[in-house]
């Protein structure tokens, strides 16, 4: 019976049109652009509601109207972005149905019910968003405000479920359940069995965090543009603060992201070691050098923004002498992290290198050195945040001196643990060495948690050295936020290529083979051009979305004194 089914499938594949072609750019580029741009919008509309809700809660609890305004402004950006997400989703579905028939037919046979649910939830999500935004001023105070906040929570719940459903489709393509073979009738695969595949939950968690990072970075870029275009000091101060908050959220979530990435990587290795080797040591090995470079840009630019920001904080000058040393650590860390090691090399390249590794740099390319470098970079970035946070205060609690010494000792211990295991890793077997990275990460995370706790306690009743002068930032700081947004977006495209590319010539790993003329997975050069094109399309459309949002704001917020004369807009 199974054999008959297999034969039938084969006959169907041979006699029906399995793939279509797209004019000028080809089918692969068409699918790539539609999927990537849709995903970028989707990440934005899932990430922004998360901290809109958090910001609204801070505003309610702290009775700080700034946060409420911030949350509302985030949400306003979502309205048009939702439409764009839906439009690109529709484009993607049509592209898949007309160019990618063979895998699309297979996936719909497995996942049809979840696709219906997806559409229904997207409907719920959209209308919850409309209610959330348009009800903002109606339910602004008292108990109704909490009800309004509940709508924000509901919006996040719908969005998260929608994302989890879509994630099940793509993770199934990577890691189908082990009992699914090429001869399995897709209609007989139980839906939950297909959804709960090996990489589903790691991808869910990874994307959840990454969406926060991405949303924060885009909002920071939006704020930076509004800062540069601001006409008044008040406006400039608001957008300076908004840019800071967006960047803070993005960098904070970024620090956690690698741990979710490790989990995902481990699941991939456990599912199929050959897939893991393809990812880390096979044809994709150079991708990780590019990734290291991008993350180095993120660390350096994020810290640079903080250091410039200290210029607008009274009292921050006492920390300025330390920033150059922080820069040294970050640059050295970035160099080590970007050192190539497990590269595919041909005989000429090996001969030119004089061996399998570079004579001097080979030792820096191993994981012991890289893990040490990245953990020290995280510690350094945290130290930058700490200095920024403490800049305009002087603690007055009697144990302030002791507390600072304990904090310093925690940093020293964490750095010591990281260095110790980094060096020790050179003298042990690989299997032992891998375990060391857990100790390094735990040391850094413990340091971050306990130092922050001490800092919060020390800040109680602290003497103020002056308020932060929001808005007093040089323009170059805002351009740094643009670089961060572009880099985050590009990095997302690159990691998407890595995740999808490790399937190589399989639509569904070892179950449905790609028999199109685009079956070969392209090299990084081609991929980088596609990623840049997608980022450019996305950012151009986002700029348009923001411009539209600005139009709505101007037409809504007109000062009473000027409305009669139809005068200038003052809505910021």
């Amino acid at each position, binding site marked *: 019976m199974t054999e008959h089914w297999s034969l039938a499938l084969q006959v169907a594949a041979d006699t029906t049109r399995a793939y279509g072609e797209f004019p000028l750019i080809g089918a692969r580029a068409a699918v790539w652009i539609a999927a990537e741009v849709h995903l970028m919008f989707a990440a934005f509309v899932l990430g922004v509601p998360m901290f809109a809700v958090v910001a609204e809660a801070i505003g309610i609890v702290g009775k700080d109207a700034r946060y409420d305004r911030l949350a509302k402004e985030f949400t306003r950006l979502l309205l048009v972005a939702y439409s764009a997400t839906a439009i690109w989703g529709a484009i993607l579905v049509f592209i898949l149905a007309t160019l990618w028939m063979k895998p699309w037919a297979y996936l719909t046979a497995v996942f049809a019910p979840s696709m219906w649910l997806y559409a229904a939830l997207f409907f719920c999500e959209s209308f919850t968003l409309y209610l959330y935004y348009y009800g903002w001023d109606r339910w602004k105070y008292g108990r109704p405000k909490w009800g309004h906040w509940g709508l924000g929570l509901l919006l996040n719940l719908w969005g998260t479920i929608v994302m989890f459903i879509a994630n099940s489709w793509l993770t199934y393509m990577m890691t189908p359940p082990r009992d699914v073979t090429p001869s399995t009738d897709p209609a007989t695969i139980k839906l939950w069995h297909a959804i709960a595949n090996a990489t589903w939950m790691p991808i869910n968690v990874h994307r959840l965090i990454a969406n926060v990072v991405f949303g924060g970075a885009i909002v920071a870029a939006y704020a930076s543009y509004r800062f540069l275009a601001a006409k008044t000091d008040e406006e400039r101060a608001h957008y300076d603060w908004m840019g800071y908050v967006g960047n803070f959220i993005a960098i904070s979530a970024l620090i956690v992201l690698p741990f979710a990435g490790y989990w995902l990587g481990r699941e991939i290795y456990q599912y199929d070691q050959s897939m893991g080797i393809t990812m880390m040591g096979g044809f994709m090995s150079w991708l990780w050098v590019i990734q290291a470079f991008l993350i180095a840009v993120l660390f350096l630019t994020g810290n640079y923004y903080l250091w410039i920001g200290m210029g607008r904080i009274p009292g921050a000058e006492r920390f300025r002498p330390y920033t150059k040393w922080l820069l040294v650590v970050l640059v050295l860390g970035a160099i080590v992290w970007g050192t190539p090691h497990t590269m595919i090399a041909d005989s000429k390249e*090996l001969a030119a290198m004089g061996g399998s590794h570079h004579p001097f740099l080979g030792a820096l390319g191993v994981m012991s050195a890289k893990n040490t470098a990245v953990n020290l970079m995280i510690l350094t970035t945290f130290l930058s945040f700490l200095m920024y946070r403490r800049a305009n205060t002087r603690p007055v609690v009697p144990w302030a001196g002791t507390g600072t010494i304990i904090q310093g000792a925690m940093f020293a211990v964490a750095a010591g643990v990281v260095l110790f295991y980094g060096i020790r890793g050179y003298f042990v077997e690989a299997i032992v060495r891998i375990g060391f990275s857990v100790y390094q990460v735990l040391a850094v995370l413990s340091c971050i948690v306990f130092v922050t706790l001490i800092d919060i306690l020390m800040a109680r009743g602290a003497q103020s050295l002056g308020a932060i002068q929001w808005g007093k930032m040089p323009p170059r700081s805002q351009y740094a936020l643009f670089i961060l947004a572009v880099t985050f977006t590009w990095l997302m495209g690159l990691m998407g290529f890595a995740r999808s590319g490790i399937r190589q010539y399989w639509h569904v790993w070892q179950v449905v083979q790609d028999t199109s003329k685009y*079956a070969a997975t392209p090299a990084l050069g081609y991929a980088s051009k596609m990623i840049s094109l997608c980022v450019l399309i996305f950012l151009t459309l986002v700029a348009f979305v923001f411009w539209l949002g600005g139009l709505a704001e101007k037409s809504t917020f007109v000062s009473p004194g000027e409305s009669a004369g139809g005068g200038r807009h003052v809505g910021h």
Partner: protein
Amino acid sequence: MWATNLKVVGIVLGTLALYTLIANKIPQVQSEVPQTLTLGANVTPEQLVAAGEKVFNGIGGCTTCHGLGTRAPNLLTDEKGTGPIGARCGKREAGKDCKQYLYESLDDPKAYVVAGYQPIMPVMTKQLSPPQVWSVIAFLESEGGTVDVTASDIPASSSTSTTSTTSTTPGGGGGGGSGGFAGGSADPKAIIQAAGCLACHKLDGQGQVIAPDLTHVGSRRDAESIRKKILDPASSIAKGYEKLAGIMPKTFGTMMSAAQLEALAQYLAAHK
């Protein structure tokens, strides 16, 4: 405001251009779809070497470990003054010339493990077709040595045209096919040998202990259960081997004839 807009556009485009440029400056490696390797009876050593280099750097996945020098010896560079692999292969094992040693390394890699390295090399004769295996040997011989592989080394049944299935699926290559393993023989021992079962399983004192010992498999499973297990390895997982679920290739059932499958199932079921 226009100046600001232009600056923003310049920064965005400049950043994108920088990343694109860097990604295009690094070595470009594309993941190819496995192709049919056709070697005629009059294939020349040069053609074998060229074909072997492609397999070595491509679907063979050899450079994943041998290109590094930490997981496995680097084959293309000098090793302690003994030269690249073509120069040193004939001196590795007493009584084995270069060709024999290289074939053994691909067919039974655990037979001789170079000092200082772990026995992690997979059985490449299970992953690559005979023409691919012999072309790789020719390529390795050419690295500092003399190529003595000829068309006569390649089994007659596969020398004209053989398709490798994948670069990553163990058992996907030579030996199987529509005719089944071992030339379609119904001798279970020949099937076990040709399919490479003993690379993971132990049977009657031979083989590895990576997967369950099959010596008394008949006491745990009947012929039906064994048949099902071969056709669909994930259908049941032996106790204590849950972490290795998925390692056994799914393709064995489609690589042997029904008669072979039946003979193998009965043979193993009789191992009480």
